[in-house]
């Protein structure tokens, strides 16, 4: 199988890479581009640790081929903070102790950010169902849900203040 050349946009930067046609976007990110923030927990789309967005849509990067990323915009955990400024979700995860081992955290943050972009004022149930594709074995989810709800609240306030 000959490799393919792919041009894409990752976290706002133009990125070119070469990969085998059967290689997943997750493997490209981790092994070819050194972006190891996205994690492989299962490789079958069941755990959400590899969550990224593709043109704003939440996907498991282990289920997307690297070659499919051509011409699309990808956002990963590495692009979530604005320089030294954490995204409110990142800060709330820290404040609420919403991580223990931290392996699922990048996936949860990407998924939660995507939720709040689609629904700035989610109920607890909506948060729980949106995040049901992300597995966490440490926390029992309690503090994660609280962190997301709290971040949503602050972000809504922020929007009002900005307006």
């Amino acid at each position, binding site marked *: 199988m000959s490799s393919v050349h792919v041009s894409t946009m990752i976290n706002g930067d133009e990125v070119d890479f070469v990969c085998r046609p059967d290689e997943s976007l997750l493997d490209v990110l981790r092994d070819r581009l050194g972006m190891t923030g996205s994690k492989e927990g299962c490789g079958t789309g069941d755990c959400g640790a590899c969550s990224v967005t593709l043109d704003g849509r939440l996907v498991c990067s282990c289920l997307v081929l690297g070659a499919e990323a051509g011409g699309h915009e990808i956002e990963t955990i590495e692009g*979530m903070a604005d320089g030294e400024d954490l995204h409110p979700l990142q800060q709330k995860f820290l404040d609420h102790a919403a*991580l223990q081992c931290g392996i699922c955290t*990048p996936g949860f943050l990407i998924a939660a950010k995507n939720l709040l972009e689609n629904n700035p004022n989610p109920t607890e149930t909506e948060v729980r169902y949106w*995040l049901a594709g*992300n597995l966490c*074995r440490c926390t029992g989810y309690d503090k994660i849900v609280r962190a997301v709800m709290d971040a949503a609240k602050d972000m809504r306030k922020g929007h009002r203040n900005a307006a």
Partner: protein
Amino acid sequence: MPLDSENKTIVPTEFKTVGTRPVRPDGMDKVTGRARFGADMSAPGMLVGAILRSPHAHARIRKIDTSKAEALAGVKAVITSKDLKAQPGCDMDILVNVMARGKALYDGHAVAAVAAVDMSVARKALKLIEIDYKVLPHVTDVDEAMKPDAPVLHKHIEHDYHQDMLETADHVKGKNEKTLPPGKRPSNIAGRYQFGHGDPKKGFREADVIVEHEFKTEATHQGYIEPHACLANVSSDGWAELWVCTQGHFMVRDTCASLLGLDVSRLRVTASEIGGGFGGKTTVFIEPVALALSRKAGRPVKVVMSRDEVFRATGPTSSASMKVRIGAKRDGTFTAAEAILKYQGGAFPGSPVEMGAMTAFACYDLKDVKIVGYDVVTNRPKQAAYRAPGAPMSAFAVEGCVGELAEKLGMDAIDIRLKNAAKEGTVSSYGPTFGPVGLVETLEAAKKHKNYKVKLGKNQGRGVASGFWFNFAGQTCTTINLNIDGTLGLAVGTPDIGGSRASMCLMAAEELGIPYDQVRTIIADTSSLGYNDVTDGSRVTFASGLATIYATRDLKAKLCARAATIWGIPEEAVDWENGAARPAGANAGNFDPLTLADLAEQAAATGGPVAGHYEVNADGAGPSFATHVVDVEVDPETGATEVLRYLVVQDAGKAVHPSYVEGQFQGGAVQGIGWVLNEEYIYGEDGRLQNPGFLDYRIPVCSDVPMIDTVIVEVPNPGHPYGVRGVGETSIVPPLAAVANAVSAAMGVRATTLPMSPPKILAALNNKMRQAAD
């Protein structure tokens, strides 16, 4: 031993820093994706390792031909068990589990491995390895495996069934002396253990009510989200380095050195960030393979397990078959208790049945108690420790019977436990007498909690259960260094699996009277610090915390001596208070306090670098008890169970960082909810695991559970300078029983077989309806 006398400098009741909730020091890296876990490291010239695994549950390996794989372009090394020669004194069970020799003992057992330039080549190479298997009869069920005519895994394991026949044990029912002559014969029963005291026969005669049930639990996996991963680099001169996600990098170093015949000093192991362990990362699987591949290939080799491999070849915990009997007087006082516990530990001896036996009745003050445990081998992966190993299953059985006794006697579920609760001075069911323990406090707090007063609706039920775990201590070594600007570097040797670096910073800061973020805690590699036991047994906040406190006290004494030098007064005339050395009193002289920054600046002049150190084989870990209360609703149409509310009350001794203590409570509870409602290893008739993936092995997801309410009880542990007990494991002991009791109450049928998945619940409900109709 200075420890005893120092420990008597008793628990401070007022803390400044300990008990606060600062942001964890490793948090920033973990929310930005910069934290480096097991699979996140790479090395120049690195190869990828992959492992070939047996598709058979039990098979003789007649021949392995690796020649075609070796000839494939891009393959740099192929190994089999021949490349892992047994070294004198090495643990043969671990060696054989790492790579099968002679026989494959379970579906997923490693049989060969390759190192290649990339994963695509490595996978091709695995397919080119030819293995001639002779498939043998297999057994995966614990009760089946115990029978005298079961397929035997290991000829050297022998058992005398005659004793069991005298006791008319279930697994020899229908057998007689003619078919089973006395004497030892090859068997899957690797051990029979007995605990208890008094005379249960007498106790049962005194009982007004006796409850007895048989229970079964399935094996569950620790389910950490990070698969095992490591990067090995063995140089041609024999020096080796290993980067690995593990709960104990000193254990990895010593075990790998022993299995591979390396000098311990030649192997330096660095613990990566660890993406969950729960006991499953307290042993080695791929690490010796990666080292052997690297040694053979002469290049760094990274090995990362797939999720399929994690399920098939690591963990899980034991499945169990149990019988429990408890007798009580009309007023609820227990008169006697008996349990028979049969735990299968996979392909090798060592199921946690003894710990299941010791913890089974530990919550109760029993004069007459007997527990018999059997350790059984089966064609399943070698079980690994899973959070309070052995305890959740026996608690499920015992607490189920306690729940039914309460119903039969018309007593409140918490009151019957309070009536019989173990307390200070109780002779435990496993032998020793308890010191100060907090079971009664957890029961009282649970009874007062608002959740306990909520009125339940139709198809709803409430379950209560208590649980116990020993907590361990062990070998620990820490160093704290004063940096040039007055900040501190604290090196500990116990991997941080749930926020322990934050706790260490808090304890060092408390001792010195300085802000929390003036201390940085790192996990030192095996060449930088003395030996540390594995992060297991809920020991880290206790033992590394204790060593941190005493290392900091050692540092403080040295800092006071430096201040004395500067001031020209005796060392005894200097005190450390609020972050600075100060003259002890008016007579000592009138000097301005010297802070850490002042003393760091003058370190060179006063004798060089300043460091505190402490090493200990700690004891004095305080047992921890918990009580859980859960409400569920069972849907009679679908058999699905919804957890409505959940309360964890647990004795932490002292909560150093309360958020992470709560996190341990909540995480343990939800793992338990998974165990009781969904999770199970499902084996086909061919002995192959049917559900080695997160789609079919379903751990609880966010929408499966409610918020988990917590109450932290603090009954100080006199064995720790701040009163700390361990908290990590006790939290998974009660939930199986608590949820099963709630489900039983909701259904009106006793739940005795886990998991209580919808089909089982529907079957139980249908059975109940049929019986009512009859």
